[in-house]
């Protein structure tokens, strides 16, 4: 090693990742690509079939629909998420803490339930209206469901920013707003990009809500081909297109973030930014906050409670308490196991991607996002196929189900951990090493404790998504086991949800989702 090379060192102890670390990261990446590999290698796939699917007259409009949805929901989530984050952190709006909690709670409502409640409310309040259907409905409902993914990291970033820069800009004559736009907004880029990436991939994988709202995308077509048409080959071929879309989104995100994502956040900032003392506008903003809560939480609660009221009121109905308790316990158990599993497995990837940037790190980290964009039915069938052939004892056990959850929701853990690794300054590690501690001991005593809060945030994100998952759970759960989502699903007769017999499970699902969402909001406020 010559001296000349050392200028490339940007604060880390070594340029090259330890073999063990990169080995582990690559292993995780490869494992997470399993569903995508299955699409290509499962017998029955051919490029001719793919070409056939691509050239079908219905495919192009579907691609266009998918892109429209991604752009519209993505943009409106960014505007809403950043706007609300600014309101709660920078203005003198009343009860900022309460708003953070309320703006996080939509994360606890599964999209297939949320969209149903909109349809139910629409039937009830405006029976003949079709306002809620198509692109418009999907845009509104999914924006209200997904904006917290931008809101939360933006709140964290805004609270962590050094106020001095904005003050300098203002002292140089810029107005408050202009200083914010010029100095602060660019520094939110990482938070916004991270949030929009999660939202885009969620949208690529979304099925239940879009079907309910009558908006057809590539994913609804994949699922329709697999389920209605019974053409799994066609479904898998079309899903390849989704995976390609995911790679595109992930690459675009890379570009948006720019080469260095080293915004100075967190630990070292001691001063809180000044608040804008607003006059009458304050009340307008308050009205906006209330409107967002009414739409994102009020509508689901209205339809669910109405159903519960009708169910309890109908007299003969009884709640199956043992099933309710059983499914609450399972939901909590699977959520906890998957959260811990994803957290552990995510560690090498988040470590290497922040500390040792390079092709291996980038590819490993980006690869884990692909499965997040595939519909649940594809992920589930790939695991059925693989486990039946090569890991039969695992098949239809809760272990395989948890593995599926980890594959699907791993990126949520990684994204959150990356923030923590970036904040855990590598110089502290160097001090530990210089005092004679080995890398493992350093990791355990220095890095891990510093990383823990961010890792916990990631774990909560994973647990939330596990609680909401339906399709994969139906196919992979041990026979006879229920989660709240499957119990809710199984009580619905006549294909569409109706919150009568399903109401108790719907209420339980919303309550149990509110717990981790509240934890998330509180963590955000403490950051």
């Amino acid at each position, binding site marked *: 090693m010559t001296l000349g090379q050392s200028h490339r060192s940007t604060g880390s102890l070594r340029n090259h990742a330890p073999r063990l670390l990169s080995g582990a990261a690559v292993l995780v990446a490869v494992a997470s690509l399993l569903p995508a590999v299955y699409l290509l290698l499962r017998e029955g796939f051919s490029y001719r079939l793919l070409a056939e699917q691509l050239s*079908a*007259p*219905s495919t192009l*409009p579907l691609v266009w629909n998918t892109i429209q949805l991604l752009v519209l929901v993505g943009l409106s989530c960014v505007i809403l998420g950043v706007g609300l984050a600014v309101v709660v952190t920078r203005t003198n709006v009343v009860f900022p803490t309460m708003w953070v909690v309320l703006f996080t709670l939509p994360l606890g409502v599964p999209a297939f339930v949320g969209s149903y409640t909109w*349809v139910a409310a629409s*039937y009830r309040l405006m*029976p*003949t209206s*079709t306002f809620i259907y198509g692109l418009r409905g999907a845009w509104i409902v999914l924006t209200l469901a997904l904006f917290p993914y931008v809101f939360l990291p933006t709140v964290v970033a805004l609270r962590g920013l050094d106020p001095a820069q904005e003050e300098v800009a203002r002292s140089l004559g810029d107005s408050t707003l202009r200083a914010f736009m010029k100095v602060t907004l660019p520094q939110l880029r990482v938070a916004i990009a991270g949030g929009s990436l999660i939202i885009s991939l969620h949208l690529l994988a979304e099925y239940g809500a879009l*079907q*309910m709202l*009558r908006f057809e995308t590539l994913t609804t*077509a994949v699922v*329709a*081909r*697999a*389920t*209605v*048409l*019974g*053409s*799994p080959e*066609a479904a898998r071929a079309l899903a390849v297109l989704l995976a390609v879309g995911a790679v595109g989104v992930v690459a675009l995100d890379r570009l948006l973030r720019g080469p260095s994502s080293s915004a100075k956040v967190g630990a070292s900032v001691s001063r809180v930014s000044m608040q804008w003392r607003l006059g009458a506008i304050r009340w307008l903003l308050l009205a906006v906050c209330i409107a967002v809560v009414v739409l994102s939480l009020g509508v689901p609660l209205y339809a669910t409670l109405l159903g519960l009221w009708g169910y309890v009121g109908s007299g003969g109905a009884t709640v199956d308490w043992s099933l309710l308790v059983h499914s609450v316990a399972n939901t909590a*158990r699977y959520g*906890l*196991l998957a959260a*811990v599993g994803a957290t552990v497995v995510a560690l090498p990837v988040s470590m290497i991607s922040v500390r040792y940037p390079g092709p291996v790190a980038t590819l490993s980290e980006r690869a884990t996002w692909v499965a997040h964009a595939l519909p649940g*039915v594809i992920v589930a*069938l790939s695991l*059925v*196929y693989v486990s*039946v*052939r090569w890991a*039969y004892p695992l*098949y*239809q*056990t*809760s*272990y395989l189900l948890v593995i599926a959850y980890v594959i699907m929701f791993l990126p949520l853990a990684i994204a959150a951990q990356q923030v923590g690794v970036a904040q855990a300054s590598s110089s502290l590690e160097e001090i530990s090493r210089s005092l004679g501690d080995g890398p493992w001991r350093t990791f*355990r005593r220095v890095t*891990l*404790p510093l990383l*823990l809060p961010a890792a916990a945030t990631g774990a909560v994100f994973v647990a939330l998504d596990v609680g909401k998952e339906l*399709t994969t759970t*139906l*196919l992979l*759960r*041990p*026979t*006879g*086991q229920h989660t709240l989502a499957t119990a809710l699903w*199984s*009580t619905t*007769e*006549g*294909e*569409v949800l*109706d919150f*009568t017999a399903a109401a108790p499970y719907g209420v339980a699902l919303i309550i149990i989702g509110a717990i981790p969402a509240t934890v998330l909001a509180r963590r955000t406020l403490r950051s």
Partner: protein
Amino acid sequence: MSRSRTRGPRSLAALMLAVVVVASGCSSGSKGAGSDGTKSKSLVVYSGQHEDLTQALAAAFEKESGITLEVRSGDDAGLVNQIIEEGDRSKADVVLTEEPGPIAQLDAAGLLAKVDSSTLAKVDSRFSPKSGNWLAWAARVRVMLYNPNLISEDELPKSVLELSDPEWKGRFAYAPSGAFVTTVNYLIDSIGEDKTLEWLKGIKANGVNEQKNGKVRDSVEAGQHEFGLANHYYWYILAREKGGEDALQSRVHYVDGKDAGGLVLASGAGVLKSSKNQETAQQFMAWLADRDGGQQIVAKDTPQYPTVDGVTSSYDIRPLSELDPPEFDQGSLSEGAKAKELMVKAGLI
């Protein structure tokens, strides 16, 4: 800061302990029935039917025979795809579907064993597949659901074939469900491929795709469309739930004259070839087709039709004998490659 540093690892240890405790209780669901030998007195049933109905069947069968059914519920196509991916190592002994298409798909893949001929002989032979590899244990009929506030029953089209006519534009709802695929299949056989494609394009242009039969029902009931194409039982489920037919706005119209809009579709039951419990599974099939066994549950717990002569539904549905459906081989539905191709071509799916 120093406090959190000491607390970190300890809470981590506590979490790990919790995980171990939780995980140890985890494998309880995997007690595989049927894998512990042929003497096993339980069967694994994959069911695409409503879970309540399947559980009612399981309870009644266990009471009579002492044999437990372990029910794995899902939707038809999900379960059928699952069985195909499982191949000859499927955990299922028996599969129950809502629609004939999916079970015919399993049959075509060579995964189903012959059903005992004495069992097949019990049910209405019109609904049995020619292959004899699955049992038509229940049936549903395609109907038009209409909203009398918007259209009267005698104004409804006489045949679904009329629906490609511009006259009906924007007035009806449909769902590209399994039953719809079956209808297309039947049309290809009866009016030919070209005319069927034209018809599909007309449906796409004129109708509103509500995605699911249940939503066809709900939207017609709400008055969004004059009428819609669906399976009969969705309406009767809603009627019973709301406390009677008079509580609903919409009504059921049975399509007569051997029209493609009035197809009767069988729900299928089959025994997997790979099952190690062939005898017990056939015993269940025989019970399912028995007038004093499974057919009683079908008659009591669901508005679907029992398929054994002399068993009548507890719901006020038009008797099977008074329907006038076209006849076709329910088992041929797996050869629906053309139907699928046409539906994709017409942009319906």
